[in-house]
C-alpha cells in the first residue's frame, strides 16, 4: 500500500495549459477517480505519474520518494490503458508474465504466477491463446492481470472500461474492485464517466481545463457540489436564482423555500432531480410548491418529469416509473430542505475559468 502525493504539478503543450498547479494526495490503499470531460488534462496527469511524460513544474512522490527523475520502468507503477494493448506477438500467458520476465524472474516462477493471476481474473486455461482470440472484456482482464502480477505500488487505469458495453462494464467494475480489495493496491482511475467514478471510487477528484475543482467523496460531490459546473457535470439539472434571508430562500416567482443552510443575499440553488418528490394532491407542508407537468419521459428505471413552476422556472423531477403522470397534470413538488444546496458565488461556466 502506497501513498501518492502530487504537488504543484503543471504541464503545458505548445503554450496551452494541460495541467495547472495540481495538488492531490491519494492515500495508501485508496481508490481515487480522476474525473473530468475529455481533454481536461486527466490523462496527462496519469502519464506524468507513470513517467512517460515529464512535468514542467511540480513533484510526484510515492511513499515519500520523489519520482520525477525515476524512469517509468523503475517506478513500480502499472498502467492499464483504454485499448488494453496486449502484445499481439505474445500469448496471453506471456503477456501476463511480461513484467516478471523484464524483472529477470525465471521461467518456472513466471509461469506459475501468470497462471495464478489468470485464475484471479477468471481466465483459467487462456494462457496459450493469442490476444487476437479474446473478446474485448477478456482482453481487458488480461491487461489487468498483466499489471497486477508485478505487484505494483500504484495501479493507474486510464478509461479502462469505456470500450466495453454496459453489461460487461458493470461486471468489470466488480472485478476491479474485488482485485483491489484482494491486493490492497492504491488505485487511481481516470474516467470521463461520472457514473463510473461514483460507483468505483472512494473519492473523486473532479477537474476542468487542467485544474482541480473539487476533491470529495462521491456522496458529497453529488449532494454538495462546489459550484455550478461541478453540479452540471455530476448530472445536476435544476438551478435557480434565490434571494436568501437566513433559511428563508425566495424563488424568483415569490415562493419561499426553507433550507437547512443559512445565507444572506443572492445565491444560486440546486437540487438533484431524483430527490424531488411529486404528489398529485396538495399537502400543507413546507417546500411543497404547485407545478404543472410539461414533459414526461420513461427511461425504464425512472420517470423523468419536467415541471413548470412559473413562467421562466422549470424543474426536473425523476421519480419511480410506477408513478404515472400525464402532460398538463397539476401536481405538487416537494423539495426536501435537507437536499437543497447552494453556491454562494455565481460561478462562471468551466470554459471561462482560465488562468488570469
Amino acid at each position, binding site marked *: 500500500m502506497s501513498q501518492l502525493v502530487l504537488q504543484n504539478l503543471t504541464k503545458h503543450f505548445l503554450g496551452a495549459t494541460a495541467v495547472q498547479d495540481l495538488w492531490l494526495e491519494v492515500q495508501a490503499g485508496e481508490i481515487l477517480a480522476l474525473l473530468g470531460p475529455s481533454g481536461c488534462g486527466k490523462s496527462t496527469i496519469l502519464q506524468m505519474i507513470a513517467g512517460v511524460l515529464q512535468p514542467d513544474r511540480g513533484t510526484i512522490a510515492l511513499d515519500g520518494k520523489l519520482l520525477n527523475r525515476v524512469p517509468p520502468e523503475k517506478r513500480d507503477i502499472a498502467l492499464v490503458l483504454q485499448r488494453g494493448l496486449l502484445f499481439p506477438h505474445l500469448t496471453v500467458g506471456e503477456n501476463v508474465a511480461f513484467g516478471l520476465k523484464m524483472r529477470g524472474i525465471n521461467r518456472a516462477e513466471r509461469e506459475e504466477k501468470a497462471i495464478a493471476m489468470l485464475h484471479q481474473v477468471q481466465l483459467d486455461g487462456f494462457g496459450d491463446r493469442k490476444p487476437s482470440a479474446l473478446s474485448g472484456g477478456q482482453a481487458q482482464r488480461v491487461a489487468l492481470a498483466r499489471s497486477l502480477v508485478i505487484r505494483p505500488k500504484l495501479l*493507474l487505469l486510464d478509461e479502462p472500461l469505456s470500450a466495453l458495453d454496459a453489461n460487461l462494464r458493470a461486471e468489470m467494475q466488480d472485478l476491479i474492485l474485488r482485485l483491489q480489495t484482494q491486493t490492497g493496491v492504491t488505485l487511481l482511475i481516470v474516467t470521463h464517466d461520472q457514473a463510473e467514478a461514483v460507483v468505483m471510487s472512494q473519492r473523486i477528484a473532479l477537474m476542468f481545463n487542467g485544474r482541480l475543482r473539487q476533491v470529495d467523496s462521491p456522496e458529497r460531490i453529488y449532494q454538495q457540489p462546489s459550484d455550478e459546473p461541478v453540479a452540471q457535470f455530476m448530472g445536476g439539472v435544476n438551478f435557480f436564482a434565490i434571494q436568501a434571508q437566513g433559511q428563508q430562500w425566495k424563488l424568483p416567482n415569490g415562493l419561499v423555500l426553507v433550507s437547512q443552510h443559512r445565507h444572506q443575499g443572492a445565491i444560486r440553488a440546486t437540487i438533484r432531480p431524483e430527490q424531488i418528490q411529486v404528489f398529485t394532491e396538495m399537502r400543507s407542508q413546507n417546500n411543497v410548491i404547485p407545478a404543472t407537468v410539461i414533459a414526461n419521459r420513461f427511461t425504464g428505471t425512472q420517470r423523468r418529469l419536467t415541471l413548470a413552476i412559473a413562467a421562466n422556472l422549470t424543474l426536473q423531477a425523476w421519480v419511480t416509473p410506477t408513478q404515472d403522470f400525464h402532460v398538463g397534470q397539476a401536481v405538487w413538488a416537494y423539495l426536501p430542505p435537507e437536499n437543497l444546496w447552494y453556491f454562494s458565488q455565481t460561478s462562471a461556466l468551466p470554459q471561462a475559468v482560465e488562468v488570469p
Partner: protein
Amino acid sequence: MLRNTLIVLVIVVLFLPLLPLLVWSFSQGWFFPQFIPEQWTFQHWIQVFSPASRVMEGLVQSLAIALTTTILSLLVGLPAGRAIGLMEFPGKAALKLFLLTPIIVSPLATLMGMQFVLIRLGLNGTLFAVVLVHLMPTIPYMTLVLASVFANFDMGYEIQARSLGASPLQVLSQVTLPLIAPGVVVGALFAFLISWNEFLLTFFVSAGRVFTLPMVLFTLLQGGNNGLTAAVAITSVVPGLLFLLLASNALQNETTLAGLGNV
C-alpha cells in the same frame, strides 16, 4: 482455376528467361540450328568455383557489401522511420520529399562529384566507399518503408511495456522490433537487393580494386564466353531468391503481422 492458371503464367514469365541460361551453363557451344546443344559439360560450373575466375571472390565481396549496407541502412532507417512515422514536426513533408532525391535523381548525375569527394578523402577503391555509395539509394527505401510501418504502430505498446518494467532497450528488443518485424524484413529485402545488383556506382567507385559479382558478370559479358556467363548469371540470382523466400516466409507468419493492425 483461373487463379491457378495465373500463377502458372506468372511463374512461366518469370522463370522462362532463366531456362536458356541454365542450358547454356551446361553446354559446350549451342549454335543456331540446334534445338538443344549437342555436347554437354560441367566445365563452366567448375570454372565458377575455381579461384582463377574470381567468381567466388566476387560473390563473397558482394555478400559482405550487401549485408553491411543492409545493416547500416537499418541502423539509420529505424530511428529515422520512427521519427517520420510517429512524430509531427515542421518540415516533415519536405524531408520526405528530400529523402526521395537519391531515387529520383540518376546516379550518373552525381557520380562525378562523388568520385571526386572520395578521391579527396582517399577512400576511392575501398570496400568502405562502395558501401557508402550503396547506402545512397538504400537508406531512402529503408526509411520510407519503416516510416509507413511506424505510421500504423501504436506507441501505447511502448508506454505499456515500460510501465511493466521494461528498459528502453528491452522495449526495443521485446516489443517494438517484434511488432514491426514485417516492415524490417521488407526494408532489408529492398536494401539487400539494391546493393546486390548495384553495378554503375560500384564500377566507378571501386577503381577496379573492389570486385563484386555484377562486375564479374559485366567483364564476362564483354568476353563472349556464353557458358560461363550463364553460370555466373545463375549464381548471382540465387542469393536474392533465397532472401526473398526467407522474407516471404516471415511475412506469411500471421502473428508478426498482427502488431501492424491494418497495414
